[in-house]
């Protein structure tokens, strides 16, 4: 579509003035920061580079503190998109003048980046168990001076887990992250914690988040449940039951949503409860 030239110019000018306002704001905040040296500092401008965190912030009533998110964060509508979680735009980050950046891991957002984004602290959010998620929620509540709400959320989530009913036997599980090549959830994946919370156990005892394993190994491990996620990592896989090499696999094949299971956030607690239902032979197909 063609745009009239003056229209286009208007657009860029509003863009520029917006940027100017932001930079001025940033300046003011930096000045304020310089004056205020007290320990009762609460973070006010947050950039979330790890989408699983946003729902937690929203629960803590901190939605309006989120000034920037990644492209794939759909929980927050109004914040500036700063790029992908692996490659956020440093200029945009600086322009947003955040005082806190929440990133997934050192690998995604190295410490050195801190120096390139002025005046911002970094919080790494990488829990691998449900308990660690709760701990992180408390920590974030602390940092934002919203301890009460954090505590309330933690209680609610714990209560949610009470819905999990005991199982007659501990079902064994293999969780497929990606079909081709076959990647499964290892010990450092939140999935392992979800599975054990739901009363099962992950058969893959490899000290990593994901492991590429041989399909032979899957047959040998003989899981009761073969859970395969569907989502960005595993778009539209061939259902395991239809794969010739799993012909002799006697497992129950369960399809789950990647966004619900593989992300260590509030959703993980619902996932555990749902999985428990599946194990019980209730709520699934």
């Amino acid at each position: 579509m063609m745009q009239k030239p003056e229209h286009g110019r208007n657009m860029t000018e509003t863009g520029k003035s917006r940027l100017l306002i932001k930079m001025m704001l940033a300046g003011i905040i930096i000045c304020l920061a310089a004056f205020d040296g007290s320990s009762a500092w609460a973070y006010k401008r947050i950039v979330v580079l790890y989408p699983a965190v946003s729902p937690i912030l929203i629960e803590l009533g901190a939605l309006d503190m989120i000034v920037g998110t990644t492209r794939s964060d759909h929980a927050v509508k109004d914040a500036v998109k700063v790029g992908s979680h692996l490659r956020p735009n440093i200029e945009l980050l600086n322009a947003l003048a955040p005082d806190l950046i929440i990133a997934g891991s050192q690998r995604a957002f190295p410490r050195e980046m801190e120096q390139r984004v002025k005046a911002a602290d970094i919080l790494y959010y990488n829990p691998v168990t449900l308990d660690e998620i709760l701990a992180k929620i408390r920590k974030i509540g602390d940092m934002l001076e919203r301890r009460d709400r954090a505590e309330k959320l933690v209680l609610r989530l714990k209560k949610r887990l009470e819905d999990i009913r005991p199982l007659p036997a501990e079902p064994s599980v293999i969780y497929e992250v990606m079909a081709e090549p076959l990647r499964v959830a290892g010990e450092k994946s939140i999935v392992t914690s979800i599975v054990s919370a739901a009363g099962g156990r992950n058969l893959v005892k490899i000290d990593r988040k994901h492991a590429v394993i041989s399909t032979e190994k899957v047959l040998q491990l003989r899981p009761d449940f073969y859970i395969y996620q569907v989502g960005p990592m595993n778009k539209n896989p061939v259902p395991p039951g239809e794969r010739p090499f799993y012909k002799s696999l006697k497992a129950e094949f369960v399809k789950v949503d990647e966004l619900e299971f593989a992300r260590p956030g509030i959703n993980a607690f619902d996932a555990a409860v749902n999985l428990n239902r599946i194990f019980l032979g209730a709520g699934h197909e």
Partner: protein
Amino acid sequence: MRIILPAALVLAFIAAVSAGAVKIDFFSMSEMERNILFDVRLPRVVLAGLVGAALALSGVLFQYVMKNPLADSFTTGVSASSAMGAVIAIMLGLMPYIPLFALAGGIAGLYLVYRIASYRGRIQPITMLLAGIVLSTFASATISFMKFLSDDAVSSIIFWLMGGFQAATPLKDLILFAVICFSFLSVRGDYLKLDILCFDDTTASSTGVDVNRLRKKLFFAAALLTAFSVGYAGIIGFVGLIIPHILRLGNLVKASYLLPASLTGGAAFMMATDLVARTILQGGQELPVGVITSSIGGVFFLYLLIKRRKELFYFN
């Protein structure tokens, strides 16, 4: 060499079948072991062998077409454009159709290179090489762009591209076998012509070889082999380049030896490297097979290069 290669093939096959993530007691197999052997391991070993054979043969054919020892499915752009097709399939979430997309991408790439490189109905090897390299670069850039677009699917694309034989099925084995048979049989009657093609074009055509027609045929056969290999096993580098080189350094320079030898050599090499890829780590973990092909193959090739510099010098 005539005994060594078939022996290597048999040995590699036996080794590849007998070892794996799960130890199988061949003398008293349990139900599970039997399932693992027949449903998983055998199809996989066979696929590895077939892909190795296809890649090595396509490398040899491309080298004849281009008159250049550096030619293989990468330098001709067929590999990258097949991969581009596969990545589009991944992007669209059409996993079961990856081989089809790879084939379509490969053939599109082949057609493009072919059109660019033919002038007045004749293929110009140098233009073809250049066009292939440009296409490769373009396809890689497109893949990078698609990776960028689908942030979340990045790792699935990367891991798919690294290649592997995990998803082997008897049907894939059968199809690839048919493709190899078709390609091989279509060039098998041309051994003497292939040797003559190593001369300059004037000499070759005045000796009675229809150089242009032969090139087209070879190019098509090689591209077909590449596209199917990429579709079934991702991009596995280096095989099409080093296997033919190693064989030539072993004095298999005539097409009548080189072509069958590249089939057996490629198959043996790939079965062996896949064996390493799936057994080197603990707990049933696997390495991408491309890592092994490039490292083992690369080191061995370097050794040969240094040892037999003289022959290589007289290659051209």
